[in-house]
């Protein structure tokens, strides 16, 4: 299991007030699996994703990333753990004006490890997601579709065990949403990465193995994916958990 949220409670601060948006949320995500958290805006999807990605400490409960609790570690070790295991995917302009290739290279330059091959790896990842044509362009020049692809490339370039995807498809049309989510599905299957996505429309869940809904602080999901109605319909042999067992 790549991600385990156990009885998590969390909220966000707005105007000096804390809004509690997650109450006793538990969720498990396995290697090679795509899980969508579906809910309307303002229901805490982003908070859940931030907690899952180790970007926000939960008020209560526990987060395990690949078996380790990042919040039990000292700051530097936690950062190292998160860099190595979690990729964050969000359509957001880079803080500085850089070409797309540099934007995708940046995650490879942080932390230890050889950096000489970083441009080649970034280029390879852009090619994998189908955005190699944008390598020399700047963020402002990109279409929404290209931005989504570049965001995936930047999140996946370090080959994380967990890819956390925040509302990637909200600016995309029907076909583009389908293609982007299909890409995430194939990346998960190829690399064995677990993918956790926050989505606000069902079309974006089409390539997910499991769907959970979030409203009123409560995460609803089927108790066991292998026993669920959906799994009976799907090819069990193709399910990542079955394949890994």
């Amino acid at each position, binding site marked *: 299991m790549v991600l385990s949220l156990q009885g998590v409670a969390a909220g966000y601060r707005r105007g000096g007030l804390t809004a509690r948006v997650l109450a006793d949320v538990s969720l498990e995500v396995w290697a090679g699996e795509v899980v969508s958290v*579906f*809910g*309307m805006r303002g*229901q805490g999807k982003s908070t859940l994703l931030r907690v899952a990605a180790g970007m926000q400490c939960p008020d209560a409960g526990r987060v395990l990333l690949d078996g380790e609790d990042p919040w039990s570690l000292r700051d530097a070790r936690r950062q190292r753990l998160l860099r190595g295991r979690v990729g964050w995917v969000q359509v957001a302009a880079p803080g500085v004006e850089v070409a797309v290739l540099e934007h995708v290279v940046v995650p490879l330059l942080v932390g230890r490890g050889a950096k000489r091959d970083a441009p080649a790896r970034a280029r390879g990842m852009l090619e994998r997601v189908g955005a190699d044509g944008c390598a020399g362009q700047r963020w402002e020049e990109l279409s929404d579709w290209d931005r989504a692809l570049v965001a995936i490339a930047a999140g996946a370039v370090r080959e994380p065990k967990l890819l956390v995807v925040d509302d990637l498809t909200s600016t995309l049309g029907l076909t583009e949403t389908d293609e982007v989510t299909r890409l995430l*599905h194939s990346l998960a299957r190829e690399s064995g990465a677990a993918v956790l996505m926050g989505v606000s*429309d*069902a*079309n974006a*869940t*089409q*390539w*997910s*193995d*499991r*769907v*959970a*809904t979030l*409203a*009123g602080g*409560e995460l*609803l*999901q*089927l108790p066991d994916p292998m026993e*669920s*109605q*959906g*799994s*009976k*319909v*799907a*090819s069990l042999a*193709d399910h990542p958990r079955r394949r890994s067992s």
Partner: protein
Amino acid sequence: MGDGVVGVPVRFRNMGQPSRQPVKFSSKEAVLGLVIEQPDNSYRLDRRLDKLLRGARYGRGTAEKAVKTLVSDGFVRPIGGGGAEEGESGAAYEATSEGVAHFRSWLRASASIPPVREELHAKIALCEPPDLPLMIASVRDIEMGYVGELQAANQRTQSERLSVGEGEWRRRMGLIVTASDAAWWEGRIKWLQQVRMYLEQEWQHYQAEQAAARSG
């Protein structure tokens, strides 16, 4: 333009608009369509119907009942030589020319708007404040069921899309139907999420009122 709605040619008058005289849809027309596509026995028609319109959840034996009605309407007739597989029985059926004409007429007519007739609506409308926790739990259960339906629709779509060929018209139409099922479940899930929140607010309000009444 004749007597058509302003700006709309007569032949398109009902396209995209709810019918004022809705044509009733039952399994009959769906089974008739399947027989026109390929003559078959009731057992196989049942299986084909389930595969084509899974979200409609037609029960086993639906095709057999529909075929009986279609025979009495003169829309299909037995041609003998039913299925050979185990569990299959009875003759195969083919469509008559009247059946084909009826099907074409049904296909051309506008689809009716289904009535919103859900048990949950009636329960919410008739519940009392002390019932709210039960209602909230009930909404949660239904929401979970819909999540399962959405997940199942997604998985059907995934496996179909990975295998469907360009020339497989019926399967491609089936994919559109499955995507419609998913959109239907999405709408229901969002609605139930709202209902759950409204009911929880009402419950909190009721508890506060009760507490105030006790202390006052």
